[in-house]
């Protein structure tokens, strides 16, 4: 009798215990794998899932005391950008000058980013003569970043994401053309803009340049018809991939286009060599370079003022009829759609 009872108990234990043991075993195998491959799992979570995790063995983004930027007072909003220069640079007069519009910016609290560059950056080629003088003449431009809500959803750390991109971009640009980017502020947009003219009137808070970080993948460079003697003051930045530095090449391309550099064809020699102005998708592991021609253009343009294209049609002084009218810049669409043909006037 007792033996039968023991047998029944053993059967019952096996019947219930085996499935539980299998489930616990599966979970334990997962824990073991996660523990053994912790670095890879955390990297995946950070780069692909957007989790805010720290990967051991990599430099921790140091968040020291917050740097409180000074609010810019009563600076011209659009047509009188103030690139901070060490010496006054002789530039061509800007196409338009409007009345300064006083703004009351709120102070932006930004953390200091000391994350190292994610890509290798070879030393730029040495310059001489006038180009060397331009490189040694540092220029600071303040940048305000507008973030696509879709990107903010995908990257919950969008504030830190943008900050480190601007810091990285500034590192690269400083080395290549002596241009420093100052982050004036980051704003999450309510809706994804369809056209850059929609965000052009956004409050700039003294920033020279508005950059719109969109969630769209880079397919081809936006068509920009810029100024001859000025820089555009708004540009879109596309992503390349989904890594934590996905917008870096897009940012450099955008700043290049703002500063008059021309995107290169996919078969161009400079593109093959890895220039960020090459209009192709480039893997994260490739070094960051800039071709010599576009570098010289950007060196020249970095001293120019930033101007809104829509205001270019309202010159303060009439242009003499024999002088050529500067090309009217056009703003690209955010989604890189082909522009609709203009309706002819009756």
């Amino acid at each position, binding site marked *: 009798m007792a033996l039968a009872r023991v047998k029944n108990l053993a059967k019952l234990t096996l019947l219930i215990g085996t499935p539980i043991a299998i*489930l616990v075993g599966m*979970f334990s195998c*997962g*824990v*073991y*794998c*996660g*523990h053994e491959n*912790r670095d890879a*799992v955390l990297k995946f979570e950070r780069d692909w899932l957007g989790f805010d995790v720290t990967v051991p063995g990599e430099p921790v983004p140091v968040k020291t005391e917050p740097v409180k930027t000074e609010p810019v007072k009563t600076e011209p909003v659009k047509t009188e950008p103030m690139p901070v220069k060490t010496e006054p640079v002789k530039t061509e007069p800007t196409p338009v000058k409007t009345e300064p519009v006083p703004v009351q910016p709120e102070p932006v609290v930004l953390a200091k980013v000391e994350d190292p560059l994610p890509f290798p950056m070879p030393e730029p080629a040495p310059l001489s003569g006038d180009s060397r003088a331009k490189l040694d003449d540092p220029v600071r431009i303040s940048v305000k970043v507008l973030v696509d809500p879709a990107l903010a959803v995908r990257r919950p750390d969008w504030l830190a994401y943008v900050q480190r991109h601007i810091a990285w971009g500034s590192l690269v640009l400083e080395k290549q053309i002596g241009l420093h980017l100052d982050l004036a502020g980051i704003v999450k947009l309510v809706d994804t803009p369809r056209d850059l003219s929609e965000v052009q009137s956004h409050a700039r808070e003294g920033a020279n340049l508005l950059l719109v970080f969109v969630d769209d993948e880079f397919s081809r460079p936006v068509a920009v018809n810029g100024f001859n003697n000025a820089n555009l003051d708004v540009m879109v930045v596309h992503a390349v991939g989904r890594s934590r530095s996905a917008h870096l090449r897009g940012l450099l391309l955008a700043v290049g286009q703002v500063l008059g550099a021309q995107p290169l064809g996919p078969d161009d020699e400079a593109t093959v060599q890895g220039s960020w102005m090459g209009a192709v998708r480039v893997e994260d592991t490739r070094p960051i370079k800039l071709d010599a021609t576009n570098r010289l253009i950007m060196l020249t343009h970095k001293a120019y003022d930033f101007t809104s294209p829509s205001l270019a049609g309202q010159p303060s002084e009439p242009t003499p009829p024999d002088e050529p009218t500067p090309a009217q810049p056009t703003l690209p669409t955010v989604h890189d759609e082909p522009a609709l043909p203009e309706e002819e006037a009756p």
Partner: protein
Amino acid sequence: MAQPVRNPPKKAPDKALEKAPVVEEPQSRLSWILGWIVIPGLLFGGLFLGGVYVGANNHDGWIASAVMWLFGLFW
């Protein structure tokens, strides 16, 4: 006079009916895949991935420590 038959003799059960096999609904391929592949796969995969998450993010917690101790007994 013959008495009326109150209990008529029962008929023998039809043997053909008694031996008829129970016809089961044919199982579709989709339900087989769902029942044997997809749902168990999701269940076990979810458990495994949950374990990976716990092992990576709480590598010094008691669960990870216990599992590593247990695995250490055999490895």
